[in-house]
C-alpha cells in the first residue's frame, strides 16, 4: 500500500487513456506528458499502459507499507526519500516504511511517479485514468486526498537495477516553448494576415491551463468563416474561440466542439504542452505532416533503445 500523507496540489492516477468512447463524448484522459509517462514506466520495469501518479505544480508525500521498485520522470519536483535526494528520470528502490516526498516543480509542471506493478485502482470503462469532470476512473474519480491508500499491482518477477536515463534523452524544459503544428482542418478559415499574426506573435499560457484546455493570452484572431457545426476536437488541437482567443485542447477536453481549429500541435510536442506553466511563452511554428511523423517515431526509437539498455537479455538475439 501507498499511503497519501499529503496529496500535492493536483495529483491523479493516469494511464495511456480511455480510448473507444469519444463517439459518445467520453474524452480519452490519460497522462498529459506521454514522453515522461512512457519513460517512468520503462524505468520502473512496467508494461506500456500501466497506471502512474501524475503530479501537477507541487508533488505529494507518500508513505510505503511495503518495499517497491519505482521511477520518476518529467518535471523536477526535488524528490527525496527519507531525506536522501533522488535523481530525476531515474528508478530506485523504496524500502518498506520509507517516506517519499516531492516538492514544488522547479523545471516543468507535471511529474510522473511509476511503481513497478502499476497503481492498481479499479479500471472504469477499460482505463484507470482519472477524469475528474465526470468523476470517473482513478480513485473515486477525483484527485488524491490526504488519507488515501493506493494498492500496488503485482510486480513482474524481473528486477532491474536502479538506473538513470542518459542525459541526451532527457528533454529540456524552458520557456519560450516552440510548438510545432500541422495545419488543418480549418486553417483556411483564417486570412493570410491572421495566420501570420498567429505564427509571428507569441502567446502566454494563462492561469486556465488544466487537463481540459489551456487558454492562451495574446492577440485575438479574426475568423473569416465560423465553424458552427460541431465536429471532433482532439488532443493538441488549437481552437479559436468566438472572441478570437486560442485554446489548446488537452486530454479531458470535450470530444466535439463547434470552434474553428487553426491547426493541431504535433504528438511529439505534447510533452511541451504538459510541462508549460502559466506565464510561460508559446511560439507556434508550422511543419509538414511527414516531419511530425518523423519526430514522433524518433521518440519511439528512444524508448526502444532505453528498453534495450534496461533489459539487454530480453532484447538480445
Amino acid at each position, binding site marked *: 500500500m501507498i499511503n497519501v500523507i499529503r496529496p500535492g496540489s493536483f495529483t491523479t492516477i493516469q494511464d495511456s487513456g480511455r480510448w*473507444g468512447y469519444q463517439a459518445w463524448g467520453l474524452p480519452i484522459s490519460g497522462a498529459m506528458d506521454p514522453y515522461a509517462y512512457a519513460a517512468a514506466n520503462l524505468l520502473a520495469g512496467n508494461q506500456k499502459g500501466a497506471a502512474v501518479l501524475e503530479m501537477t505544480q507541487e508533488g505529494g508525500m507518500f508513505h510505503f507499507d511495503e518495499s517497491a521498485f519505482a521511477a520518476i520522470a518529467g518535471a523536477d519536483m526535488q524528490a527525496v526519500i527519507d531525506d536522501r535526494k533522488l535523481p530525476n528520470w531515474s528508478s530506485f528502490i523504496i524500502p518498506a516504511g520509507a517516506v517519499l516526498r516531492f516538492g514544488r516543480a522547479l523545471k516543468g509542471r507535471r511529474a510522473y511517479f511509476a511503481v513497478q506493478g502499476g497503481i492498481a485502482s479499479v479500471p472504469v470503462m477499460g482505463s484507470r485514468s482519472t477524469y475528474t469532470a465526470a468523476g470517473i476512473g482513478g480513485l473515486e474519480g477525483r484527485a488524491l486526498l490526504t488519507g488515501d491508500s493506493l494498492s500496488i499491482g503485482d510486480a513482474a518477477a524481473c528486477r532491474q537495477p536502479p538506473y538513470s536515463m542518459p542525459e541526451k534523452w532527457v528533454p529540456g524544459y524552458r520557456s519560450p516553448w516552440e510548438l510545432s503544428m500541422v495545419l488543418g482542418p480549418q486553417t483556411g478559415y483564417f486570412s493570410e494576415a491572421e495566420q501570420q499574426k498567429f505564427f509571428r506573435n507569441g502567446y502566454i499560457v494563462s492561469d486556465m491551463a488544466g487537463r481540459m484546455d489551456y487558454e492562451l493570452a495574446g492577440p485575438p484572431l479574426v475568423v473569416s468563416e465560423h465553424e458552427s457545426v460541431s465536429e471532433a476536437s482532439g488532443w493538441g488541437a488549437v481552437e479559436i474561440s468566438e472572441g478570437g482567443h486560442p485554446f489548446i485542447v488537452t486530454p479531458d477536453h470535450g470530444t466535439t466542439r463547434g470552434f474553428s481549429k487553426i491547426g493541431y500541435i504535433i504528438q511529439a510536442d505534447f510533452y511541451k504542452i504538459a510541462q508549460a506553466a502559466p506565464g510561460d511563452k508559446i511560439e507556434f511554428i508550422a511543419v509538414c505532416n511527414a516531419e511530425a*511523423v518523423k519526430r514522433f517515431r524518433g521518440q519511439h526509437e528512444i524508448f526502444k533503445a532505453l528498453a534495450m539498455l534496461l533489459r539487454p537479455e530480453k532484447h538480445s538475439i
Partner: protein
Amino acid sequence: MQQIAEPEFRFAGDGGMVVVFGTKITRELYGRIRGFVRAFQTIQPVGIREIVPSYCSVMIYFDVLETTVDEVRQAARQAFYEARPERQQASRVLHVPVCYEGVMAPDMDYVLRATGLKRTELVALHTASPFFVYMTGFTPGFPYMGELPFSIPRRKILRRMVPPGSVGIGASQTGIYTIEGPGEWWLIGRTPLRIFDASRQLPFLLSAGDYVQFETIDIEKYFALREMVENGIYAPVVAVEEVLP
C-alpha cells in the same frame, strides 16, 4: 444515379484525419456518414484507434507507429465508394421529463426575448414531437439533437458551470448537459435523468440515431423523480416506434 462528390480529407494533426462530407446538418448526410462508418469498420484497416462521427464529418484517429495517413486515406476512400446510406427500420424513443420553470431555466427569459415566443409556445415547441439524436459528444453522452424551428446564436461568454441535466439550445440544436462543466448554450430547463452514469451496465442512455421526446414536469415532480434516479429505482421510459420522419 446521382453523382456524389468525393469527400474532402483534412489533416487533424499527425494522428488524425477528418473526412468532410458536407456543411449542412441534414438527415441525408447523417445516413451517409453512418453508412461510411459502417463500411470503414468492415474494412478493418490496421492502426485505427477510434472513429468519431459528427454532423458533417468523421474523425479518424490512428496510430502512426502502425499505419500512415496515406493508408488511412486510401481505406477511407474505399469505404466511401462501398458505403450504402444507413436506413433505420425502427427508432428508439427515450422519454425525457423536463422542468421548464424558474431556477431550472436560467436563460428562459433571454430566449423568449430573442425569439419573440411566449413561454407556453416555446415549451410546446420543445415537447411537440421527438427530436432526432444526430450525434453524441462534447461531454459523456451529451446528445446533439435537431431541429428547432428557429435559430439562436450561442452565448458569447462561456458559462463555466452548467448543472448536470440542464437542457440547452444553441443555433437550431437542442441538447442535455450530462456532467457539471462549461457550456455556451442557453438553458431552458432541467431533467432529473442521468444521461451518463459510468456505474450503470449501459453508461450511455442515448446513442446517435435515437429520438428524445421531451415532457414537461413541475418542480415537485422534478425532485421526486431525481430522488428515484439517485436511488436507482427509476426506469427510463423507452419506446420503440416505427420509422419517424
